[in-house]
């Protein structure tokens, strides 16, 4: 197939427009486009328009995710790499994962290869501490042998509870080494030796934590489901054992358990939300994040896996992209629990309020300003582009709703776009059926579609009448055919096979048809 000549390709129009604008002085748009291009290359810039404080950001995290996040930042934003390197090395030395430690240096080298002129060479900053590596490896080996021997002893003694704990310890051990498959193996093995639902719940929680660290979004839902089942049966058992204890103690006990349940539920909601987000299921992600209980329900997850601010960002962006305004008001702005999350990231409130007050230009500016923050997030970076596009489309639809016609220029001002850029967006939305309007290209006006309801109703009634009559007729014939058993049957001789009837088909296709 010969490639069609450029003027005939519909998209060429789009690219041409973009280029023109890029060259022009539309700074706002230019920077936006730069950001998009950067996203394509997975490289994020930090400048006055896109502030980002690495230390403040990373200080909300600890442990493994601290290093994982820094690694992600190193590969997406090379200019931050030197700083990230120092922090990551410091943290990694506290752990026992030597692979992870070495990975930090590899990542830095890769970042350096991408931006040779901007950051110093690795050797100028740090060298891997070989002695630490050897010592740690030796220590790990000893620990592993010890744990495995323990497991073996318990297994031969058939002590169920001890076996479970040995498996759990091994799982924890492998997890701290970053050997996820081994860790998962031991965690799931421990399931066989669980005696109470609380044990099952603990096991599920460990696996979920593991999967979240691993960013294996599609599997999270399975274990959340198992954990919820375990949670249900755990509270049921307690309900039954309640009456035996003295009344007052039972009451206190129940309350305690309820709180416990709530906490577990919060964690599970967050995990599910993350799993939906990871699978681009934004609406469900927003719903589950918003269901999560108060911040303290996260317990040890805070910082170790996720920061409350992250939840605020994920939930808000997903909600803006998919929820109608009334739901946003009811579930986010009026929710006490969720305002605790939003407090962690003040710009999120500003974003929400701009959106609710139709200051769409502001919304887009905030999204742009914090795009660096979003791109550097380990869970969010793949969805920033999608979410931004969705929010932009929804804003356009919302903005146009009250108008019957509006000049594209005025609309462009409200969004901070040029007329061409806006027209492109609007046309895409009209074709997708999101906006019921048409563009007056000569006069640059967007006009809402006016339908003559009466005529439309008549036309619809006439059409469905005809359709139904035709369908009835065909069904009647079909019924008669079936009654007469005139059903196409497989030919008796296999030799005829599927070619039955083709003889007829080509036979009388002789016309100049």
């Amino acid at each position, binding site marked *: 197939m010969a490639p069609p000549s450029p003027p005939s390709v519909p998209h060429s129009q789009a690219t041409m427009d973009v280029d023109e604008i890029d060259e022009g002085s539309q700074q706002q748009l230019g920077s936006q486009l730069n950001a998009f291009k950067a996203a394509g290359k997975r490289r994020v810039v930090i400048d006055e328009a896109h502030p980002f404080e690495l230390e403040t950001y990373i200080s909300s995290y600890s442990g493994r995710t601290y290093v994982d996040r820094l690694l992600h930042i190193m590969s997406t934003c090379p200019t931050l790499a030197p700083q990230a390197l120092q922090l990551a090395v410091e943290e990694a030395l506290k752990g026992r994962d030597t692979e992870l430690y070495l990975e930090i240096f590899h990542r830095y080298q890769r970042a350096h290869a991408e931006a040779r002129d901007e950051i110093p060479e690795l050797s100028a900053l740090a060298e891997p501490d070989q002695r630490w590596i050897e010592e740690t490896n030796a220590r790990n080996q000893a620990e592993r042998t010890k744990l495995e021997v323990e497991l073996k002893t318990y297994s031969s003694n058939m002590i169920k509870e001890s076996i479970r704990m040995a498996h759990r310890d091994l799982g924890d051990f492998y997890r701290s080494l970053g050997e996820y498959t081994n860790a998962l193996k031991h965690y799931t093995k421990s399931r066989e030796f669980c005696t109470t639902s609380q044990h099952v719940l603990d096991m599920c929680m460990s696996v979920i934590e593991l999967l979240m660290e691993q960013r294996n979004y599609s599997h999270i839902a399975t274990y959340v489901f198992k954990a919820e089942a375990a949670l249900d049966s755990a509270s049921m058992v307690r309900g039954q054992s309640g009456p035996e204890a003295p009344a007052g103690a039972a009451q206190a006990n129940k309350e305690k358990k309820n709180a416990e349940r709530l906490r577990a539920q919060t964690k599970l909601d967050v995990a599910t939300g993350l799993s939906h987000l990871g699978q681009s299921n934004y609406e469900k992600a927003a719903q589950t994040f918003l269901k999560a209980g108060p911040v303290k329900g996260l317990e040890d997850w805070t910082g170790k896996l996720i920061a409350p601010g992250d939840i605020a960002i994920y939930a808000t962006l997903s909600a803006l992209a998919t929820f109608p305004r009334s739901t946003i008001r009811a579930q986010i702005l009026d929710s006490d629990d969720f305002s605790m999350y939003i407090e962690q990231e003040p710009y999120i409130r500003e974003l929400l309020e701009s959106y609710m007050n139709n200051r769409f230009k502001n919304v887009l500016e905030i999204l742009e300003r914090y795009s660096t923050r979003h791109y550097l997030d380990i869970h969010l970076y793949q969805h920033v582009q999608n979410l931004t596009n969705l929010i932009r489309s929804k804003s356009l639809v919302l903005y146009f709703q009250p108008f019957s016609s509006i000049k594209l220029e005025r609309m462009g001002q409200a969004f901070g776009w040029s007329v061409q850029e806006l027209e492109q967006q609007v046309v895409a939305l009209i074709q997708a059926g999101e906006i019921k309007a048409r563009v007056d290209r000569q006069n640059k006006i967007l006009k809402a579609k006016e339908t003559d309801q009466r005529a439309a109703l008549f036309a619809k009634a006439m059409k469905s009448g005809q359709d139904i009559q035709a369908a009835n007729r065909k069904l009647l014939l079909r019924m008669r055919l079936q009654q007469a058993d005139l059903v196409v049957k497989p030919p008796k001789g296999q030799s005829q096979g599927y070619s039955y009837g083709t003889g007829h088909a080509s036979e009388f296709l*002789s016309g100049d*048809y």
Partner: protein
Amino acid sequence: MSAAGTSQLGGPASLDDVLNQITTTNSPSSLNHYLRSFAPKESRDTILASILASGQDPLSVLDPQRNTLGYLYILSARLHSTSSPTPTLSVIEDFCSQFDPEQARLAPDRVTLLAKGIVRASESSNNAKYALPSLYSLVTRYPPDLSYLTTLHAIFLKTCVATCHFTAALPVLAVPITSVDTSLSDLHYNDNLVYHYSGGIALGALKRWREAEEFFEICVSAPAQVPAAIQLEAYKKLALVQLIQNGETVPLPKYTHPALVRLFKASAYGAFVKMYPTQVETLRNFVAKEQDTFIQERTLGLINQAIERAPIWLIKKLTATYLTLGLTDIGREVGISSVEDVRSIILDMIDSGEINATISADDTVTFADVVPHFSKEDLDRVLVQAQEHNRVLHKVERAINTSREYLSKALKNKDDGGWGMEEDMFPPGMGGGTTWADD
């Protein structure tokens, strides 16, 4: 019946005996029985195809109208016999226009045989179209009314299409098939498929797309345990007809055999439908690549017509998005570089009422909505149709309610509820839906 016995006892029957029976038996059904059994199966047709002892042609003795049954047996035997002379065209035509349908319906297999014989005879005389008037008389006169499917339908339509006499088929095609009676005609499922397939082809060749669509659809969605090849062919043509007619394909009814949809999607046609409508050049490139398939399956004509219509659908899409557009803009979207070409396409579309638009002096096209107009007469007509339809459905429902299968089933399940109660529980005409759902 006794007549059949005697002639067999008295040695092999001759045509003279047969003729005697034909002229003397008053009851057509006993005559039919005699004609079916007067001689061993192998020799029966040979005897029927022979001539009288006096050397006379038996057909000249018989009257087509009065002795329809006998005439039919002899004529059909003669047409298939190689030894005896083929009856002349005028004899066939006379019979077809004069026979008594009541008598002929006693021997549906002979009628089919006759029709096949007529086609064969006309083919061997290298003038297939000679068969058409006779077949037309047969197909219109034989069934009680045209809504009955017969083997003759398939034979007639096939001949029409083979000889490119599409208009001749129109009176028959105008009446949709709604009744099937296997005692009226020895039908095979293929007759239904062939009739609707060739009907679709005939209507398509006459550019009556909407009707062609329906015929192809009936063929494609015909009840099937396994899909027939002709159904797949029909599906291909159906899709192309829909592209020409609507610019997009309409999903097939749910009861279509799923394998057909799968097979279609995997074919070159599936790919064509997927990319349609797009710029003419892209379509042409694709077709050039798959040309062999399309030529071999003889669909290139339809494909080309679909491609010619592609700009129209693209422009129609634009009317949904834009109020005004320059001709050059339209040309760019559609992939036509010449402004004049675009102008003429748009003018054609305005003339045919497909879009409502004006072109101003500076080459700006202003689109407006197409406003549908309905007169009171239109509405009345539609309402009458709907009532008529309702009556038909009601009749069908009552027929079902009295049918043996339904009653026995209803009796068996009468305790489960929801059976046999529709008539009382719902106003007339409403019960139809529930009956269907249960059945």
